[in-house]
């Protein structure tokens, strides 16, 4: 039976029969290292960050000028299958899980929450918005996840749709969900939302108004059952 490659932590959770005491020595994934080296060779200074989870996945962060070049390089390397293109808004949500805004907390007398620091994920990052795209090679059986920082004052990037035709719709979706624009895109109109929709829903500062009116009734789900939590898990 195959098991997940260790993510670098020793698991405290797996059951006794599946527990595998793996050595803490870092594994080297030669195939993905080679892919990373080739992308770096093609893009030169364009690669600004990378992350490899051995035996599992590869993340490469490129700068904005090389965003389209990254797609061309990947396609030339045999990564012909286009998976998806989207984005991540790294801003910690000003509303939190219950969607209470700071103003609501102050009105109800609760202490204002300290805004959390913005922390980007694998392969690093410097800006709030990051493009995220993934391509796959059927022959190599590996995928690459590309990331690209977009500065707040200029949310534009080149279009991938000339390289991967499937990116066309994904970029339209990213446009309406995050408010980006893609240079050279042939048909930059709304895909999902009505034309008069205000706001960009997947931005972290877009509030879900229904939640503001009435908090999520299922919140009890995450409270520990009396007496059970202590023995079974790390109840809060």
């Amino acid at each position, binding site marked *: 039976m195959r098991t997940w490659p260790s993510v670098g932590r020793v698991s405290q959770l797996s059951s006794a029969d599946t527990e595998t005491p793996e050595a803490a020595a870092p594994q080297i994934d030669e195939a993905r290292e080679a892919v990373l080296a080739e992308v770096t060779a093609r893009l030169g200074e364009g690669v600004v960050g990378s992350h490899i989870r051995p035996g599992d996945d590869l993340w490469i962060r490129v700068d904005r000028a090389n965003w389209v070049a990254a797609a061309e390089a990947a396609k030339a390397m045999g990564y012909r299958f286009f998976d998806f293109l989207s984005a991540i808004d790294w801003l910690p949500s000003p509303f939190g899980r219950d969607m209470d805004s700071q103003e609501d907390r102050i009105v109800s007398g609760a202490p204002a929450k300290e805004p959390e620091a913005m922390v980007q994920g694998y392969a690093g990052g410097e800006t709030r918005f990051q493009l995220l795209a993934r391509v796959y090679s059927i022959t190599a059986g590996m995928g690459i996840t590309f990331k690209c920082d977009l500065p707040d004052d200029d949310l534009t990037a080149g279009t991938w749709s000339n390289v991967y035709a499937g990116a066309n719709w994904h970029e339209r979706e990213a446009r309406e969900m995050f408010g980006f624009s893609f240079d050279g895109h042939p048909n930059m109109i709304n895909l*999902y*939302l*009505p034309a008069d929709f205000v706001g960009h*829903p997947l931005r972290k500062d*877009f509030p*879900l108004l*229904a*939640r503001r009116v009435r908090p*999520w009734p299922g919140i009890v789900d995450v409270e520990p059952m009396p007496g059970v939590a202590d023995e079974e898990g790390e109840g809060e």
Partner: protein
Amino acid sequence: MGLVESGKLPKPLAKLLNISRKYSIWAYQWGLACCAIEMGAAFASPRYDVMRLGVIPFPASPRQADLVVIAGTVTDKLAPAVVRLYEQMPDPKYVISMGSCANCGGPYWDSYSVTKGVDQLIPVDVYVPGCPPRPEALLEGIILLQERIAHEDMAERWKGEPIVVG
């Protein structure tokens, strides 16, 4: 039908008309999401066989239908189409709202794009709860609607006054 419009229909005749209306419902299938498949199972599959209840499930157009089953999530983008469909149907017309999404928004109660209940747009006669409701539940809903039709005062219904929602 002058008698009906003037509200002077003799009771036995009204009852007879109601019974015949009750067993000849032309149902338009407005399948939107998951519920559409369960509605298909109820309407088109030999196992559930809706025709034994006197429902004819295949009108070609809403203009020939007496009943529309709103089965699935109604989004704000789709809402004008729902209203237009309802307006195309001839009176007397009935609406069954099938499933949690059409009833109240269901699992998408906090979504930014979902209409929280089709009854904000058109008047609903029967709500069928479930996510999605089983085909049997829809059949039960149709039986409830038939009861309602059987006890209806047609003169009241056919006065042509607009039904106010809410």
